[in-house]
């Protein structure tokens, strides 16, 4: 749920609760206020009737359906104003309704009058209706107000926060730019932004260090293994016995293995770090054909049959160097894990690149072979990184790569669309 919606909802619920409680008190207040005002009004009425009597009007003539005048014995003390609710018959409504009655007694010209005045009391239902109506109007106004002003203002207040969010989403190690936020003048946001800036700077620094480390390690290992290789090549040319030759050969091969592992790992690291960005659309057909031409003889001398089904003008957005590495790995994988008198089939069209080869049925789950250093056979020469590299390339360029094995047929398929 969006922050602004949560705030709106909370605000509306609080307003609603406030209006309900407020409405209840307003109801009580209105009720008592009406009674009080009416009492005063009735008091004045009673007083003015008394005045009329004083001025000599016959009191019988004054009586109507709202005024009642009784004579009291003179010896009784004058009564003060007395208000009470009473049920009285009301002509216009033709029924008993609740009325407020005010009575007071006066001694005028040797007579003692008790003057009572009635008035219709506003019904509770009417008050409730009024209060509820008022509250609903207020609530609707609030709603409109919130919908328009509050959301606008909140949006403005939260703008720095949104900006920060946007920047975080766009964060990319490749571009090597720490966050840059402008002052929002809101303390909490500024604190958050400052923390984010520090964190991004630290992240980028760590990332650079790891990158440097992998670059360095690849360089640092390659130099001594180069030295070892050179020494062994020199040693090969000495006057050596067969036994020594075996030892040299074994040392040489293992040294080669180290070099291959380091090179492949550094390529994987570069792929993971997205170091091959800004890909351009390249002609896969040409590249594949060029690579097949180069390997045709290799496939042939390895005693394998090559079948090709390659569509012209297939393009894909991928770094040319990486595309070549991908094709090389697929082809050499197909050559490597083949059987005697086997075959390789390469198919390319606008929707996929498929490299199939004959081989030994797999014992492992083919998907497992996409992981690093996972290999089916214990062929010591294979370092088990070829398919992992292809897999990483496909991940980097968001292509889908599947490796399946149906009996003795292994298929590596890359979807291009």
């Amino acid at each position, binding site marked *: 749920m969006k922050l602004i919606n949560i705030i709106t909802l909370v605000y509306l619920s609080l307003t609603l609760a406030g209006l309900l409680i407020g409405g209840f008190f307003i109801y009580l207040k209105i009720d008592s206020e009406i009674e009080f005002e009416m009492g005063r009004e009735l008091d004045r009425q009673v007083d003015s009737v008394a005045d009329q009597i004083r001025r000599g009007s016959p009191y019988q003539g004054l009586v109507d359906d709202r005024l009642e005048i009784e004579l009291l014995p003179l010896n009784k003390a004058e009564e003060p104003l007395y208000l009470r609710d009473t049920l009285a018959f009301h002509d216009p409504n033709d029924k008993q309704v609740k009325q407020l009655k005010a009575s007071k007694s006066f001694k005028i010209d040797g007579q003692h009058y008790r003057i009572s005045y009635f008035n219709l009391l506003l019904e509770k239902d009417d008050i409730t209706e009024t209060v509820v109506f008022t509250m609903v109007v207020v609530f609707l106004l609030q709603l409109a107000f919130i919908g328009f002003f509050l959301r606008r203002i909140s949006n403005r207040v939260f703008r720095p926060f949104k900006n920060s969010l946007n920047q975080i989403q766009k964060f990319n190690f490749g571009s090597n730019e720490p966050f840059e936020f402008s002052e929002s003048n809101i303390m909490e946001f500024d604190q958050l932004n400052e923390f984010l800036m520090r964190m991004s700077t630290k992240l980028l620094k760590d990332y650079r260090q790891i990158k440097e480390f992998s670059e360095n390690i690849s360089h640092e290992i390659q130099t001594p293994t180069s030295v070892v290789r050179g020494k062994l090549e020199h040693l090969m040319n000495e006057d050596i016995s067969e036994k020594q030759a075996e030892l040299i050969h074994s040392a040489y091969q293992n040294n080669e293995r180290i070099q291959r592992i380091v090179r492949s790992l550094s390529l994987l690291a570069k792929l993971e770090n997205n170091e091959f960005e800004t890909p351009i659309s390249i002609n896969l057909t040409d590249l594949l054909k060029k690579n097949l031409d180069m390997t045709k003889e290799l496939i042939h*001398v390895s005693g394998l049959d090559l079948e090709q089904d390659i569509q012209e003008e297939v393009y894909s957005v991928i770094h040319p160097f990486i595309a070549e590495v991908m094709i090389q790995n697929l082809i050499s994988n197909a050559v490597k894990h083949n059987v005697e008198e086997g075959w390789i089939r390469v198919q390319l069209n606008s929707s996929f690149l498929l490299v199939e080869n004959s081989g030994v049925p797999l014992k492992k789950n083919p998907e497992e072979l996409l992981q690093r250093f996972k290999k089916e056979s214990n062929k010591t020469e294979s370092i088990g990184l070829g398919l992992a590299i292809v897999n990483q390339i496909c991940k980097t360029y968001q292509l889908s790569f599947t490796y399946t094995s149906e009996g003795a047929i292994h298929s590596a398929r890359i979807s291009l669309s």
Partner: protein
Amino acid sequence: MKILLVEDNEELADNVVRYLDQVGILCETAITHYEAEDKLLSYTYDCVLLDLMLPDGDGLDLLNWIKSKANSPNVLIISAKNSLDDKIKGLDQGADDYLAKPFHLSELLARLKAIYRRSKLEGSDELKLGEISVQFNTFQAFVNGNLLDLTKKEYDLLIFLITNKNRVLGKQAIAQHLWGDYTDDLANFDFVYQHMKNLRKKICEAGGRDYLKTVYGIGYKFEENPS
């Protein structure tokens, strides 16, 4: 041929110097950018082997400096920075070739000779060994004047073997020279054996002697004077 090797790793430099010395190429070394400039100002070289990672500066700067001089020597970049960018930059700035570390010494020699042929002899050189001769300008090889019917790879292989004659060449070195990275992960090098067998057969059929000798399963040797 006289060569300057600019390389900060002395062991590595020693390997190269020894290898080239055995085939009669004089190779001097410079460990730093400064020393390299010093030597280049004092002597002339046919080719500079340049490591891009130097303790006192970027090798590419040195390359620029070399190329800014009149009559500048050829430059072969050797670098562990196995990145496409370096390769493109280096070649753009006038380097003649690029060899990624680690390299086989036999490969280095083959590249050096190729550069030398291209620039100094304008490609019209002829490579001779006994009754075998290779014409570079026509991409043809002869035995006693008879044209050998070689595939592209066999032709490359022959040049590689003659260039590194009398040296034991590991199967990996041969495979890598012919096929590059494709052979990286291959379990066996039977295809090297296949190529060798074909080449030997073609030379012998044309009346050549059997120059190829197998060395204990390590690799092969092209002997100048087979017994």
